[in-house]
């Protein structure tokens, strides 16, 4: 029983990270109908920015001693990473996606794959392909509850992810830009006709999604101990499946999808076989696209001729 609980806790924390990344996918797809393949790499860059920022702020000095890296510095690292990722996201949108926005569907798809590949391999050149140990931005404290081991890092993941998701929800519901984002996801041309500066809104969407992914990246590094330049590939794909599972274009859907995928992966690894942990995500994708393509919380969109 404790094993099951342990696997569930692990699955939910992994799932929260997937949810953070899935939010970026779902928002961009909702507006542009484009799968931002490069989003996984933005997640990776966020993690590495956190790595280098923490290094620059002297985290190495705190490791091994009983002192913890000061909390305000940890928050600073998070902010730096989120800002850097937001800039990267906006740059990608401006340089690679905007020129092909009006092209037939295939072209932006290939461009997105190209950007993703570019960032992966540039990452390998710049950051070294070997896994790097993630610095102790948060020092680890373990608790044991009913035989289940929970670290403060897992708790932080839940708290931070929840906070960010709530923040996003409030933003989308209450602010002007948020409302504009929703308008664009319904009908981008009508929004333009209503005088909304679509370029600005799209830029903001990319920025917010990327910032969330970066937060996910730092949490991932803390939880998974190492990072490497290819960490975005599989994780990004799983987060995309999570977005589809929840209903692409739906923000609560992305959250639920993320948690479900995290759970499915962890339970498969624990009870079936670790070799199939990645395959299960793809199986879920295929099943959901065959049985309920609009996702759990999605709305069936009628395609007009």
């Amino acid at each position, binding site marked *: 029983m404790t094993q099951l609980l342990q696997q569930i806790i692990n699955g939910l924390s992994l799932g929260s990270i997937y949810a953070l990344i899935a939010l970026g996918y779902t928002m961009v797809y909702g507006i542009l*109908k*484009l*799968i931002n393949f490069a989003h996984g790499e933005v997640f990776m860059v966020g993690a590495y920015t956190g790595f280098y920022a923490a290094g620059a702020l002297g985290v190495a000095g705190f490791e091994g001693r009983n002192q913890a890296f000061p909390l305000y510095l940890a928050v600073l690292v998070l902010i730096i990473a989120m800002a850097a990722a937001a800039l990267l996201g906006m740059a990608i949108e401006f340089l*690679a996606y905007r*020129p*092909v926005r009006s*092209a037939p*569907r*295939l*072209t*932006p*798809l*290939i*461009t997105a*794959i*190209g*950007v*993703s*590949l*570019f960032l*992966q*391999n*540039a990452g*390998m*050149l710049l950051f070294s392909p070997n896994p790097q140990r993630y610095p102790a931005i948060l020092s680890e404290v373990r608790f044991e509850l009913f035989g289940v081991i929970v670290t403060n890092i897992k708790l932080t993941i839940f708290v931070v992810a929840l906070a960010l998701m709530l923040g996003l929800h409030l933003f989308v519901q209450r602010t002007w830009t948020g409302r504009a984002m929703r308008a664009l996801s319904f009908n981008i041309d009508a929004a333009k006709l209503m005088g909304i500066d679509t370029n600005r809104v799209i830029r903001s969407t990319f920025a917010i999604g990327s910032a969330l992914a970066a937060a996910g990246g730092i949490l991932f590094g803390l939880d998974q101990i190492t990072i490497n330049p290819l960490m975005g*590939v599989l994780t990004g*794909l799983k987060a*995309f*499946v999570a977005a*589809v599972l929840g209903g692409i274009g739906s923000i609560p859907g992305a959250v639920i999808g993320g948690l479900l995928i995290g759970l499915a992966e962890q339970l498969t690894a624990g009870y079936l076989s670790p*070799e*199939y942990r*990645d*395959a299960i*995500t*793809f*199986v879920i*994708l*295929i099943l959901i*696209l*065959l049985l309920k*393509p609009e996702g759990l919380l999605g709305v069936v969109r009628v395609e007009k*001729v």
Partner: protein
Amino acid sequence: MRALTRVAVAAGVLLVIYGLQFGVEAGFTQYVQRIILLAGINVILAVGLNLINGTTGQFSIGHAGFMAVGAYGAAYIGVQLAGPVHGLLGLGPLADAVVFNLALLAGAIFAGISGLIVGMPSLRLRGDYLAVVTLGFGEIIRILFNNATFLGSATGYFGDSPSGLPEYTNFFWVFAWVTVIVLLIHNLTFSQTGRSLTAIREDEIAAEAMATPSTRLKVTAFAISAASAGIAGGLFAHMQSGVRPEDFRFEKSIDMIVMIIVGGLGSISGAILGGIFVAVSLELMRDLQQYRLVLYALLLIVIMIVRPQGLLGTRELHHLLRRKRPAKPAAPTEST
């Protein structure tokens, strides 16, 4: 008479290739020969992928999986057949040729069947979703091979001899199969069926309104393209002396996409050029190997932004040659 001419021409072409083989084997080092063989295999991959991605407009990015099925299938069947066939025909080039080609066909059939299995559910999806699902299937296939103990799992399948699979692949077989597949797909593309496929690419709903059985055609095209990837896989396996799941990662699918994008999505001659380009650039960039994928990625992005139709667009090389002739003046219209 026409059939006889065709057979004679076919025999002639094969003889030419056979003759070229001697020239290649004498004139080039093994190292360069390998690149030439890889170029041929790439051409088969590219032309096959072009049928579904280019001509039919259904974007698949997991084709490495079908190449893997073909490779493992051909390798396994080849090993099983070697005994009986050698028993019948003795040990010699004829027996080897029979075993090899039967194995390749078996690999192609396996690959085609897996193409059907993947295609049938997936081709109901459109655009981006199809791409991700094919990616997923490609990965699933690789993971399955990684865990298949009777095929060697992660270590790979090397047949039953410590020195690996027999190296049947040589210049003649690669380019004979290149000719066969290019001809097949060329004929298919410029036939009635091919026009229906192009119609599906341009506007699927309109095509369906004109009574084109679009799902059936899409799945058929998918299966054919999977089968040709299978042939390429079989040829590759018998050149590598073994089949490893690692040889068919997502990177391989990306290489295939670069091949058809560079040449022009929808053009067979473009696919041929693209296939050669990837094989050659692989070696020319040997010292820049770390940058190879970065450069490929940039190439994809730049091509998409600057010239999305690649080198040839949907045109063929021979169409370009034909356009040089001046247009005939229009016939005067008849007055009623």
